[in-house]
């Protein structure tokens, strides 16, 4: 078997396709690294500027009074850029990087409600009139280019030997067919892995030489997993190539079949299927949302009526006002959250269907291990929600410590007006954990492995039954 593998590798190393693949992959990976070196410091700078602004704003309010903190809230919360963004860009330009926790409703010049969490409903990409393209990240290189390359290396793996008649010669020796098949498969796997590994190493070399980008041990761990996923994904396409090559008489026909499969599987299936399910599952029109919004607010206003706005400042009015403010903010938040979860459901639904295409699986996997993309966005949303609760609890607890306060949150007359030490105020920290990713992604990894197994055994069956 080892002989077959070796022969296969030698054959490939001298071929035109090997040279072209090496050049192509190297060019792509180097561009990816250079672009990352150019863009990433800017992103980090932007993030740290934003965090500094957030902290300054928080400290300014904290130094003023607890009341202002309770009214204005923590402000814009920012998503931390992932250092592994070069692995998977994850459609970050379509996902908002900030969630606003502030922006209290202003009823009148001297009457302001309390802060709420609000998720941007608009695409941040609305201003963009540039031609839209797929960013060249590892996801693109692995998902699109590597799969194509895998097909180009395997389409003639058996068909051409049959055409030349060397297959008959080989099988005349006393080698079992599965040995031939596995030998050839391994040969192809190693010959594609060589340029791929080379280009990845070049990419990482360029990225790690930069002094301002520091990849820690965890990042390297993740990169290792990503490499493993890439190899698994590559074997999937190699196995498919071997399968078709074993079934088809002519190598040219085999390539035609493979290319058409590739175009359907990689380019069209993920997007068309997603759009299809996206169209057929419900979503909320923005007009509908505002209708609901107005209706609920009217109900709320009717419930409290004018007693909230009377000029008297007795405890009853103030309590009612405090409750009204809190309910108003909670209602806004709930409506926003409802819409968000509807959108997320619709998106998840569409994404679930696209899992039949391996390229989507691999891109999900890459995104979650690189800490970008939609899952990451959900984590970020979750983090902000947790932080919002924490912040509210902090305000209530601190207010409780002040004996002079009436404990009416959001009302000047009813709250502690003492300044708070800025250090004591909880700060928003955006985190993500690998273990959590792994749990959610284990299913997809298994699915990918299953695909490879099925295709390999399919290739074996096809090859065993074939007449030479």
């Amino acid at each position, binding site marked *: 078997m080892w002989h077959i593998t070796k022969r296969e590798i030698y054959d490939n190393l001298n071929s035109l396709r090997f040279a072209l693949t090496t050049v192509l992959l190297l060019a792509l990976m180097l561009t990816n690294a250079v*672009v990352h070196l150019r863009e990433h410091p800017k992103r980090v700078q932007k993030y740290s500027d934003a965090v500094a602004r957030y902290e300054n704003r928080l400290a300014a309010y904290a130094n003023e009074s607890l009341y202002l903190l309770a009214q204005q809230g923590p402000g814009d919360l920012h998503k931390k850029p992932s250092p592994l963004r070069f692995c998977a860009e994850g459609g970050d330009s379509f996902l908002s990087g900030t969630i606003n926790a502030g922006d209290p409703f202003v009823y009148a010049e001297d009457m302001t409600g309390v802060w709420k969490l609000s998720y941007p409903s608009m695409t941040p990409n609305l201003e963009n009139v540039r031609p839209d393209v797929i960013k060249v990240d590892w996801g693109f290189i692995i998902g699109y280019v590597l799969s194509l390359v895998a097909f180009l290396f395997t389409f003639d793996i058996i068909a051409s030997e049959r055409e030349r008649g060397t297959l008959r010669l080989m099988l005349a020796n006393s080698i079992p067919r599965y040995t031939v098949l596995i030998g050839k498969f391994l040969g192809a796997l190693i010959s594609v892995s060589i340029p791929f590994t080379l280009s990845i190493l070049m990419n990482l070399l360029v990225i790690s030489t930069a002094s301002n980008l520091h990849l820690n041990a965890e990042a390297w761990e993740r990169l290792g997993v990503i490499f493993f996923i890439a190899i698994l994904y590559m074997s999937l396409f190699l196995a498919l190539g071997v399968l078709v090559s074993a079934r088809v008489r002519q190598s040219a026909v085999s390539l035609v079949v493979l290319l058409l499969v590739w175009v359907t599987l990689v380019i069209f299936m993920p997007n068309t299927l997603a*759009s299809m399910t*996206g169209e057929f599952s419900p979503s909320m029109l923005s*007009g509908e949302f505002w209708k609901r919004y107005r209706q609920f607010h009217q109900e709320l206003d009717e419930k409290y009526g004018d007693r909230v706005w009377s000029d008297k400042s007795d405890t009853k009015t103030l309590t009612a006002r405090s409750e009204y403010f809190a309910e108003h903010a909670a209602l806004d938040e709930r409506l926003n959250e409802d819409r968000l979860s509807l959108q997320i459901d619709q998106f998840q639904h569409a994404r679930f269907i696209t899992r039949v295409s391996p390229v989507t699986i691999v891109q999900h996997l890459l995104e979650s291990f690189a800490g970008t993309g*939609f899952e990451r966005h959900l984590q970020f949303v979750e983090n902000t929600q947790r932080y919002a609760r924490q912040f509210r609890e902090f305000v209530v607890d601190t207010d409780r410590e002040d004996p002079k306060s009436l404990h009416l949150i959001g009302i000047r007359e009813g709250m502690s007006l003492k300044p708070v030490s800025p250090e004591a105020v909880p700060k928003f920290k955006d985190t993500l954990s690998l273990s959590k990713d792994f749990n959610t992604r284990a299913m997809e990894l298994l699915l990918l492995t299953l695909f490879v197994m099925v295709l390999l055994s399919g290739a074996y069956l096809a090859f065993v039954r074939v007449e030479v």
Partner: protein
Amino acid sequence: MLKTLIGRELLDNLMTFRFAAAVFITLLLVVANTVVLLKDYEQRLTAYTTAVQESHEELREEKTYSGYGGALIVHRPPNPLSIFNLGLDKQVGNKIEVYHAFVPTIWDAEKHGADNPFLNLFTSIDIVLVFQGVLSLLALIFAYDALAGERERGTLRLVLTHPIQRGYILFAKYISAMLCLLVPLLISLLLSIILLTTSTKVALNTDDFLRIGGIVLTSLLYVSLFYLIGLCISAITRRTSTALMLCMFVWGVLVLVYPNLILTAVEITPKPDAKISVYNQIKQTWEEFEREKKQFIRNDAVLSRPSRGGEDMDAGFGLEGVEYTFWKDEDKPSILLYFHQTGLYAGKIKAESEPQVPHVQNYYNFYNRETVNIVERTWLVRKPALEAIYVQPANLGRMLLRFSPVGLYDAATEAWAGTDLKGIQDFFSTVQRHRRAVVDYFYDKKIFESRQWFAADKGTVDWDTLPQFSFQRSDTGINAKRALPDMLLLLTMNVILFMVILLIFIKSEV
């Protein structure tokens, strides 16, 4: 003789597996995507009609003229040809406010309708994209063994023993392959048009069919270019397997890698400081205006009385009967939008304030006219700055894409469909004209200085005589003019490549 050659080639091509596979795949993808796109278009159209209806009603609820800000909204209808090439039709905003205090542009627009921002993570596949990927691949698959295969089999030598010119052979091969490639192209297009006509919501007129014709023509040029690329490779290489391999790499680079690589690699960002200075300039102009306004109120003997508002001189001018005062402003440095407007709403002005009313009217006359002037002045700096920030980088990006036939094809079909930047800008210039018409109407009818501007008690507002907004997509001639440069480039590349192949083929030994 030529006929025989074409006939033979045609038969050769038609009877192959690749032809059957090609037709099948193209049909499948085009039909599946047309269904999706059609559904999407219908949804967008429904969202559009509801939004138009809502805006219409919303405007009629306003009792004073000054309330039209935020209520006079126009919507961009979805383009039915976006099914062929989506372009920017879905990406940019389609809901825009008409207001005298700013000039509406693409960047000020928002979106009505089902706006699930997450769904933008999926690429929308339009018919042109299917052709772009699949037909180019098919053209190469048809071409790779056209010459190399015959040479390998030795039939080329046989054919050349006949007294035929080599150019004829090449020409026959080209014609027959193009005929074969036309089959999937036309059948799938026909099917998608049939699907479109079954939908009651899509109304295609004669002009649209002309535009579709333009798209077909461009597709032909594009497919032919890829066939010639394949033929060229086939003429150079000795063996079919090498030709096939080279073809696939060329396809991968031209269609898949180059467009994505070049726009990732080249950084096209305008200078940020220029943007900031323009924004500051605009803001300054408005702040100056604010001071002028205060000065105007101070000069007015009635309005400036301290009892009538004090510090907040423009709040309500102490008019008895003012229900609320409002301000309407926008401050978006990223799109250089800044304006600030104040107003008041009076349901019923009480008799004791009546002498004050002419003064308030006079004030609004000054304020509104001056606002229009300020907007015109700031527009002079905002327009070129927006061009520099958004349009130029976009055009540069499209320019870079043109180095691949894919970019040319995309640009040309976008221009035919009217979903390119220029087509979208047509809509926004119509909106800008509409704003001008509304402002002129306000001037003519003396609405800026009327009592109805802020008070709802005497005389009702008449929204029905307001200039109506209507948008017509540009003429087919204009579409053609926009598409022509790219189509000519495609044609030139076709001709040059054909010449090159002819030269190579004539010189080559069999």
